[in-house]
């Protein structure tokens, strides 16, 4: 048995255990995404970074301990690195959450809340399956163009999203959302007017309007 010290908590584990497994044993949460024990341990997502006292960074999922060692799993710089890396992940993620079968149970949405990254739309957290989606019933829901992080409370309690958390600023997501609205015959003017309630003075709203106008005319 070796002793791993993570954030001051000492955990006794078998030699060869990964830092992530040791942390989980102690109930410490290190954000991670790509690792699936026994299936993929390639350390690709770089979210589970931990720091040695000397300042070197290692992914907790692929660092195996064979002797007593100490790690820091949470600090400002680690948070920044994680955040940036997570933004990288979202950057090329095709976010058509409203059609995604994992909506409501989306790891990316959970992590973006945990790491305070603004990226996923409310749909990623929406508990309604794509078939139950309010949009398909013609309800003008702002979910597809609103930032997630609220656990989709409104949708959960039966109402459409009102856009409390502000607009998403990714152009591709907005474009996809626009075509989704149009596909389902929801008037995008209604959507914009509704969004105008809370986003009226937000500079990001101008982006939304611009994108919508561009897609409409093109």
């Amino acid at each position: 048995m070796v002793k791993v010290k993570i954030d001051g908590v000492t955990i006794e584990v078998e030699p060869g255990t990964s830092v992530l497994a040791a942390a989980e044993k102690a109930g410490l949460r290190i954000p991670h995404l790509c690792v699936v024990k026994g299936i993929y341990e390639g350390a690709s997502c770089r979210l589970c970074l931990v720091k040695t006292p000397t300042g070197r960074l290692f992914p907790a999922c692929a660092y195996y301990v064979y002797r007593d060692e100490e790690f820091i799993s949470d600090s400002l710089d680690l948070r920044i690195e994680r955040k940036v890396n997570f933004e990288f992940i979202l950057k090329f993620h095709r976010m058509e959450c409203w059609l995604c079968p994992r909506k409501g149970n989306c790891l990316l949405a959970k992590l973006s809340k945990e790491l305070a990254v603004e990226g996923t739309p409310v749909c990623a957290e929406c508990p309604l399956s794509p078939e139950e989606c309010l949009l398909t019933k013609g309800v003008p829901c702002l979910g597809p163009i609103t930032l997630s992080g609220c656990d989709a409370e409104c949708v959960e309690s039966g109402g459409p999203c009102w856009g409390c958390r502000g607009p998403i600023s990714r152009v591709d997501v907005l474009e996809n959302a626009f075509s989704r609205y149009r596909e389902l015959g929801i008037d995008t003017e209604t959507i914009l007017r509704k969004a105008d309630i809370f986003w009226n003075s937000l500079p990001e709203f101008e982006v939304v309007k611009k994108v919508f106008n561009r897609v409409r005319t093109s």
Partner: protein
Amino acid sequence: MSSQHGSLIIGEVPAVAGHVDVHVESKEATVRVKFSATQDPRFFERFLKGRPSVEVPYVMSRICGVCSVVHLTCSINAVEKALGVEPSEEVLRLRELAKGLEIVQNNLIHVLMSLPDFTGCSDVVSFSKMHQSIFSNLMEANRLALEAHKRICGRFVHIPTLGVAAHNKPVSRYELETAGKLLHTVARKLEETASDLADAWRPPVEGFSDPAPTYCVLNGDERYPLFSSSLLFSDGVTVPVEKYATVIEEIRSPHSNAHYALYRGRAFYTGSRARIQAYSKIIGCEVSVLAKTLSIDFNNPFDNVGAQYVDVVYLSRFLGDLALDLADRFRGGIKPSHVEYSSGSGEGVATVTAPRGVLIHHYVIRGGRLESANIITPTVMNARHIEVAGEALVRKLVERGESEENIKNIIAALVRAYDPCLPCSVH
């Protein structure tokens, strides 16, 4: 303010929400208290002009994050009246439930926030240390009330559950039952705590009586009215809500962004103190006993807090029964529903019982869009009354030779006792 001359500024009276400055000026035996909300106006009535009537309630609910449901329901009610829509009965009941739950939870918090003033503690933290059992009981009651609220409304603030002539969230029988039981537990807990509270009860100023004892409540006959179609004043005048403007006049406060509402040119008050006095018959003796236990003097503005406590206990019982009754009547739960209506034109005034008193929303709708709106919040109604009562209080305190520091604290306590939710006065 050791002499007859001087002025005193109590900056940023801490309260539940928002800030208010109180200026006290005394000059040759005349004392002037100026209640001035420091918040900037948000022009809700103005910027909603031209908006589709369906949206209006959701925005109006944002006037206040503390009593959002009250604004929401009142607004929905006003829109419905204007458009002549009649929602189904269970929707109305659920609305009552949602709104009542908010009053319960809201007033509980108000009581908690004011208790330090009434127990001689400097703040809530020291209160929680000195009166641990009272504090934990009240917190527990608050938690249970929130729990019940969540069952019915889905989320705590700005609930999307309610809509114009619609109810969006399916409420199961189990949820109704749980909410009912939770509410009864809240009532029981509070009743149990009452005697402890009575022991600790030290009103900041005793024997102070209201210089302008006019109040306003909703008019109800048999039932504690959460909605009503007429207003009742303490001088016995009953006014249909549509005619509120004939008796209530809303003016801009000369020294701040707040508004005053005057009843025939006079200051009046509203809130739990008014309700307990007006509905003494409906409330019944059990609760009156509670009022005796706490030795509430309904003539003393400070004792609004005590009245709120009583109010909460009664409402918890009342809503608990309502929830259980609904659970009985709708064995399969209440499904989301909405009534079809055409977006027409019309004028509608709605008044509801809000945690702090009477709330009036008055809309003119043309072609499905809001043309004009007027909102009179309880804080607006109380604002002038606070000044009047404050002036009398300061005179009394100066007579008693209280120190400046004490006067400051007591005036702040007075403001808190009326209404801790100040942004409503500026909307």
